């Protein structure tokens, strides 16, 4: 079976790298992006199955804003939100793509993996 593709949008380099290592060890093809621009570039090149999106992305774009833009490029993808503030996310998520799952940081990788496997 072909590897499923995951787009990982995360501004913290250590977290981005760690999650990529973990997911790749479980057989996924992962592209990491630090910014909305980089994420959109990858989205134009690859048909991602899942987008893991940190909702606190810096450099002028909110995570929800980025997720909305990515949803336009990747309508088939399932979106997973990674956030440090679930309550704040729930209060301000109007207009954002429907997230299939929301994970609060620090992220439990086993739970995240289970969610991804259920989606793909």
């Amino acid at each position: 079976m072909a590897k499923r593709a995951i787009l990982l949008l995360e501004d913290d380099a250590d977290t981005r790298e760690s999650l990529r290592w973990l997911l790749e060890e479980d057989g996924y093809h992962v592209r990491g992006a630090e910014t909305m621009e980089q994420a959109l570039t990858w989205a134009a090149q690859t048909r991602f199955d899942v987008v893991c999106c940190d909702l606190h992305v810096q450099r002028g774009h909110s995570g929800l804003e980025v997720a909305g833009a990515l949803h336009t490029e990747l309508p088939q993808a399932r979106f997973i939100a990674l956030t440090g503030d679930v309550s704040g996310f729930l209060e301000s998520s109007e207009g954002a793509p429907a997230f299939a799952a929301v994970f609060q940081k620090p992220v439990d990788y086993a739970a995240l993996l289970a969610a991804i496997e259920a989606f793909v």
Partner: protein
Amino acid sequence: MGSFVLRELPGWWREMPFDDPLYAWVQQGQAVAVLGNSTIRDAAACAEFDLATLAVHVDMGQGATFAVRAREGALWRVQCEHASGQVWMRAEPIAASVRRAEQLLRSQLADRVVDGMEHELRSALNAISLNAQLIVHRTATRKVVTGAELERPLGIIQSRLIELTQLQHALIDDWLRLEDVDSMVDPVQMLKEAGKASRACLAAIPVELDVKVPEQMRGIGLSRKRLMLILLAGIITVADATGAGSALQLATGDDEAVLRIELTIRPALSRGTQTGGTARSLLPVAGVLTWSLGQGRDELVSLADGGWRLTLARGRSPEESS
């Protein structure tokens, strides 16, 4: 070819051919001694250590690093240094204590974060947590994990722990700048919240800490309890001199004040330490102290009862200022 020298408590030596595959030796079920850090001057940081399985291939070359899984399931990083015909080994706990710390953090800090530092704290915690999970994941799913594969996640854990502690130091400094700390509830609460990161790490370690309050601290309204709090919050990187030493300078207005803190560490027998496990219970502390020492003026002395006395000197001395 040199000798492979392992030192065991209470101080006897075992030699084996340097080119013997260590894993074969381990598989024979013999106890392996783990040395303390040779960079800690005259430290008795060595411990008897049983290895049930050797999780990684061992390359006994200079500077080799590998991981071992102890019988109780804890995962340790062992670093070998080859010098003067001898191989010195240093061990540090990795996944188990970090994982327990992460679990504590998850439960204690999840809903109680510090205003203005939430993102930084959570980012650091998240990176620490994920890399601890990565190490556990790799060692659980593979027969062989090379040292090189552990170095990067371990490096991230260490650097982000330092970052956490620096955040704590910033909070400590803010707290101590206030004129009337007793009337200010929030900064103290902030300190407590931030201090949970280090305290959670230390909570996984079966030791008892005691601190002798320096004479200098007695006149500035810091209780023993609060000094302990500072130490617990900042012990991991207290060597960076932005912790208690700078706090003293801030509190006294003396830029050249040097604070000497005497910290005694003993195994906590009441927390399940077995007979013969004294040194093993202290070994995790060695990893913590390794990060704290190295500033030249610190002293670590082994005690007859198996404990250690650590004297930290903080703040700039007149010689350093000039």
